[in-house]
């Protein structure tokens, strides 16, 4: 049985259903509103509803053959993600940029190079490393290492990250933004230049799942119907 994982709630789920439906593969949530059971009109395909954040792990472990989730989640949560999963289609929704943002009043900081210069001064003055709040530890660390930023510290923030600067638990943040509205409301500004990552909802194929002949045939049928 080919297992296809899709987000179990919210806009991501609705948009995923819409995307498949618009391409002639209707899918929906079975039973009641609270029941996490999905259905798709192919007996060889099993729809699995689960939290979008867990889909990368399930794809990497090979417990899902296919899955819809954000590129940000896959890159953050799967080591050497390109060896473990393959992108089949970018779905054109759930767009978000992962960015580093600093207080808007930091008139001296535009670029990641400025930020590095500030981290040096900050450590000398305050005696500890400038804190950047994020839940994207790996992506942010790789980005800052690539750009040669030193003397910072990542602090974990699983939600309301934009509020950490005002609460003085961080000096800067790295988070997903779509319109920049939340950043502005919290008096933050993204560094100039390209984001760490531009992400969108994407259909992934697991390279480590057990692909039987039936699964391959089911995938071929699905791809034909979806025009992939």
């Amino acid at each position: 049985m080919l297992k296809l994982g899709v987000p179990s709630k919210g806009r991501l789920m609705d948009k995923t259903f819409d995307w498949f439906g618009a391409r002639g593969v209707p899918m929906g949530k079975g039973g009641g509103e609270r029941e996490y059971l999905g259905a798709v009109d192919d007996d060889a395909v099993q729809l699995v509803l689960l939290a979008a954040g867990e889909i990368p792990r399930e794809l990497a472990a090979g417990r899902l053959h296919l899955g819809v989730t954000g590129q940000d989640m896959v890159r953050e949560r799967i080591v050497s993600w390109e060896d473990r999963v393959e992108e089949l289609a970018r779905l054109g929704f759930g767009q978000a940029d992962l960015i580093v943002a600093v207080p808007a009043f930091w008139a001296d900081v535009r670029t990641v190079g400025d930020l590095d210069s500030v981290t040096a001064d900050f450590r000398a003055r305050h005696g500890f490393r400038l804190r950047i709040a994020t839940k994207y530890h790996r992506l942010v660390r790789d980005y800052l290492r690539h750009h040669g930023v030193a003397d910072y510290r990542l602090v974990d923030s699983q939600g309301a990250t934009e509020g950490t600067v005002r609460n003085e638990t961080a000096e800067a943040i790295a988070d997903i933004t779509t319109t920049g509205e939340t950043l502005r409301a919290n008096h933050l500004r993204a560094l100039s230049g390209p984001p760490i990552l531009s992400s969108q909802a994407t259909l992934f194929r697991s390279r480590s799942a057990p692909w039987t002949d039936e699964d391959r045939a089911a995938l071929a049928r699905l791809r034909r119907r979806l025009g992939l």
Partner: protein
Amino acid sequence: MSDGAGKAAERAEAARLLGAFLDAGATLAEADILQPAETLLDLYGEDIRARAFTTQGLAGEAMLRPDFTVPIVQLHMARGGDPARYAYAGEVFRRQETAPERPSEYIQVGFELFGGDDPALADAEVFALFSDLLAPLGLRVGTGDIGILTAAVGALSVSERRRAALLRHIWRPRRFRALMERFSSTLRLDPPVPGAAEAPEIGLRSRAEVEERLAMLARAAAEPPIPSEQVWLLDQILSLDAPAPEALSRLRDAATDLPGLEPAVDRLDARLGALDAAGVAVETLPFSGSHGRSTMEYYDGFVFSFSRPGRPDLPPVATGGRYDALTRKLGEGRAVPAIGGVIRPAATLAAAAAASGRA
């Protein structure tokens, strides 16, 4: 993961190498596997998280030791003695985020030498020890000197603030290059960031700190760029790759235009003399201006490595170098000259197997 037979062979090889280090006059040193994360993070920065396993203990965050350097320095600082030689063998743990095919647990065997009156002699003693021990494996040798780089930066015609920024990034070639480009061109002052003046002051970094840095940037924009001859000289030093005697004479030439380089070149000269006296074939010893630069270690002087020829995909079999600055950081003001290196017994076994396969 390793199989039992492989582990046993690795352990036996480690014992052999450790025996050689003890025969060279070292005291056996032990170190805890769980190291306080804070010390390592303060030294190496957040990057260490990409290569060390972190775990949570009751006393705070701990890391499975990614190497022995820090605990051995701490042990020496507590115990004293001059000179002091230590040898150790034990597992280190690496996350290998960027190279998952490499083992995440393997044995390191190391030798560290603290103190002594003559750094050139200490450098030569350690290098000759490694060189002799590894000679049967036919490895490719690389050497360099981070002290030459810091001396070159020290000799540039540049403000102290810019010099400090360059020195801070000696180990990060990309940032270093970006800074060199910036400091060697005429800067125009950016206009104020729109909206910044109206935005409220939030967080621990104050508006006064922002104003201070803006004033500094204004002064910096008026600073003369680093002269192009000096930029060229630094490029020459960074790209230098020649047998040691030729490298020395080219650095002597560079020092005539960059006089501040002279003492560091004298130290290289003295080291080559000491290496020669210790029986190392100095005429053919490779020297590279950038050797050891992209490793995260706090090497700040002589650096060396031994690698499998034709296998750039593999990590080096052995690496080492001088790290005086690290002892200052860990010694809270006290500093001790220090040089040492490590060998990976799994790699010497593989190299020996490859060498006998070729024979």
